[in-house]
């Protein structure tokens, strides 16, 4: 049996799953659901939930707990963790994986035009950090939250690949 805590855009769901010879037994927030699950490939599922049909693509973004569920033409971000671990984490007063990453990575390959911050700067959420030119557009990368800059590993004029570290936060 598996027991998960799933967070969908602020809504919490406790999901219990058991696999038996005759099929899945699934409970969500204490209510039972009849589920059929067909695996159509590495990322695609066909699910029937109490008869409702859902074709699902599961996308990963390099984080173990965070996925995007693509269904009905919509992108739905979810965060999933083991239920007991989540309870322990909450008791310890820790935040889930939602805290800001310590390293800002290049979202696309491009040329760094301008680094607008220096180590030690305190930057409010939404303020411009760095400007990257890609596909002939200037893309302003803004602070994802209130942050303090720890280091600026790239300077203007440098080319970066997707995923290269651009800035480090405290």
């Amino acid at each position, binding site marked *: 049996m598996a027991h998960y805590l799933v967070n969908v855009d602020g809504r919490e769901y406790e999901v219990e*799953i058991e696999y038996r010879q005759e099929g899945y037994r699934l409970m969500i927030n204490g209510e039972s659901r009849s589920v059929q699950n067909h695996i159509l490939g590495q990322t695609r599922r066909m699910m029937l939930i109490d008869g409702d049909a859902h074709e699902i693509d599961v996308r990963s973004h390099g984080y173990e707990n965070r996925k995007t569920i693509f269904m009905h033409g919509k*992108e739905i971000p979810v965060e999933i963790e083991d239920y007991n671990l989540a309870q322990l984490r909450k008791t310890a007063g820790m935040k889930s994986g939602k805290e800001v990453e310590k390293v800002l990575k290049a979202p696309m390959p491009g040329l760094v035009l301008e680094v607008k911050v220096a180590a030690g700067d305190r930057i409010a959420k939404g303020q411009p950090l760095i400007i990257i030119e890609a596909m002939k557009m200037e893309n302003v990368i803004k602070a994802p939250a209130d942050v303090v800059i720890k280091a600026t590993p790239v300077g203007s004029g440098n080319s970066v690949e997707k995923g290269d570290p651009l800035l480090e936060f405290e």
Partner: protein
Amino acid sequence: MSQKINKILIANRGEIAVRVIRACRDLGIKSVAVFSECDATAYHVRVADEAYPIGPSPSKESYLVHDKIIDAARKSGADAIHPGYGFLSENAEFAQRCQDEGIIFIGPKSKTIALLGDKLQARAAALEAGLPVVPGATIEQDNVDKAIEEAEKVGYPILIKAAAGGGGKGMRVVENRDQFAEGLQRAASEAQSAFGDGRVFIERFLKRPRHIEIQILCDQHGNYLHLGERECSIQRRHQKVIEESPSPVMTPELRERMGTAAVNIARQTDYIGAGTVEFMVSQDLEFFFLEVNTRLQVEHPVTEMVTGLDLVQEQIAIAENRPLSLKQEDIAFSGHAVECRIYAEDPQNGFVPSTGTLRNYRLPAGPGVRVDSGVVIFNDIPIFYDPMIAKLVTWGEDRDQAIRRMQRALREYRVSGLETTIGFHQVVLDNEKFRAGDISTSFLAEEYPDNNYSQFSERLAESAAIAAALDKFTNERKIADINGGTNSPSKWKVTHRKAGLRNYGGTF
């Protein structure tokens, strides 16, 4: 004297190259593709009759090199070049070169492209042809204090635009005097990098305007037509993402006035071919000339869907020096068409381009659905070009039906391996203001200030939670396929089938 075209070289890539090749095939004209290194197996190459390599992947070393395109035309014996949009489509020098080489350039004359490509000259031409223009001024860029003075006269908010601009590049909105100097510098540097021309000018920035454009067709015999409007107000970073025809605010009377204005500037500039006259329309339906795009537009299919015409075939007929077969009174509009541009971009992350390999690619179909796609499964989406991978267009008896069909098509459209704008479109189409036609070019910025395009019902959230849990459960237990019941195939079999599929991209 008309001159039959037998073979067309398409100096472009992606969906527009495919679009033009389709028109060629429909007309029995041979098509020639050109391709850069990374495009060797691209879809436009696969569907063409002939294809020629034109060098390294960066467009400056391939698709933009005049000599290479002309060489390929010579080698293939093409008698005409269709430039598509972007790349060389609005390059007056290239159009002239084609003419000098005795190759038909499918587009306006070089001098018309040059005139209309310069926004300052275009504005002057519009004034001369009696079109209303937005208050604005030219500025001395080296003298910032003087420029600020000019800006005061025009009045804030101000839009700084590249003189050689297009596609939203080199454009900045400046709300007040304090922001002016920085905005000017940024716009000029972006203009320099995008167009090799750092000249900019300023215009009054209209609050919540609509972007409505008129499609024109002009032959070489003095006949001018307009094919009605396209509403292109849904924009991000000044680039269109959803277009439709007719505009929800259009009346026959306004269409008549805007259409006449469009035809007037076409006459004024000796226009030949298909073109688009763009207008800004204020909340009280006053319209102002913006610019003329001297080429086929990305969003031309919505006009095709409501008029029943094939604009590429019309372009070719005009290039063959045939007179237009239709008169203005023959143009009738039927139903409503909507286009959603499918970009390889991450809307949640400020629409940054997303590159990678299409692990899975399934197109929607069914009544009223048209997909102009430039890619196929397992294509790599390169970083070198515009990230638009396809245009999804639907037609309906009315706006509601067209939108419902679009929602259906977006639901069927599946792309894996890349982020796309599919989910973004689905959220916008659900928006009540959008459904009511209450839109402007500020719509996305106003409705989704944090780029938060994840909106969905409670029920869908619960289903997503179940999906995530089942996904984790089966992955952790390496369960290949369990559907319940006793008829499940052997797990050895499904595991190996799954492994086999992985070699071919994983999903079906």
